[in-house]
């Protein structure tokens, strides 16, 4: 059974379009995240939700809007896509109550903006 799943795996779209990426975790974790990994493989946190509450909101353009309908789901909607948005986006989850905050990552969504 997949612990953290995200769809789609690949997303190719034109500049200016709006797209969404979905994420689901079945680990019973209380916290979910979106990370962006650029071409140099640097992993940078974008957002974090704890029990559906936004707790981390890094300096991300407001074209990016996360939504957490429940503790097991965290979606990412991107408006007016730009060339610089091309990257791999990872969803992750953790149990902050464990005190370790160990991250469990999804397989990633490779976004290519043409």
């Amino acid at each position, binding site marked *: 059974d997949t612990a953290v799943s995200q769809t789609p795996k690949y997303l190719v779209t034109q500049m200016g379009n709006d797209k969404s990426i979905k994420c689901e975790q079945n680990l019973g974790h209380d916290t979910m995240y979106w990370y962006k990994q650029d071409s140099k493989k640097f992993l940078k946190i974008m957002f974090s939700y704890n029990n559906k509450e936004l707790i981390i909101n890094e300096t991300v353009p407001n074209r990016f809007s996360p939504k957490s309908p429940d503790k097991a789901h965290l979606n990412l909607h991107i408006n007016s896509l730009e060339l610089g948005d091309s990257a791999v986006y990872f969803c992750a989850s953790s149990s902050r109550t464990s005190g*370790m905050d160990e991250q469990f990552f999804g397989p990633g969504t490779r976004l290519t903006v043409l």
Partner: protein
Amino acid sequence: TQLLEQSPQFLSIQEGENLTVYCNSSSVFSSLQWYRQEPGEGPVLLVTVVTGGEVKKLKRLTFQFGDARKDSSLHITAAQPGDTGLYLCAGASWKTSYDKVIFGPGTSLSVIP
């Protein structure tokens, strides 16, 4: 601002060789995690170290947390091609509920058969 540095950035070795990867920071962390990421996949947690000076072993991999909890090392003995991947260290702090895990830039390891 908390930052993690990793060295070397790239490493290419022959199968059977030993290697050490370093993770350094000027900040103290409550715990430090090591992940391995293979091409086309998400990072996978290898180990978490919590206590200063702690050493953990995972088969041929040995992880050590510095006494001051600011740095860590990963030593691989007799590297295998299956060890190829991007190794990421990540530090966690617990000063506030808004603290986040900080990732280092990674060490890209290539083990040549």
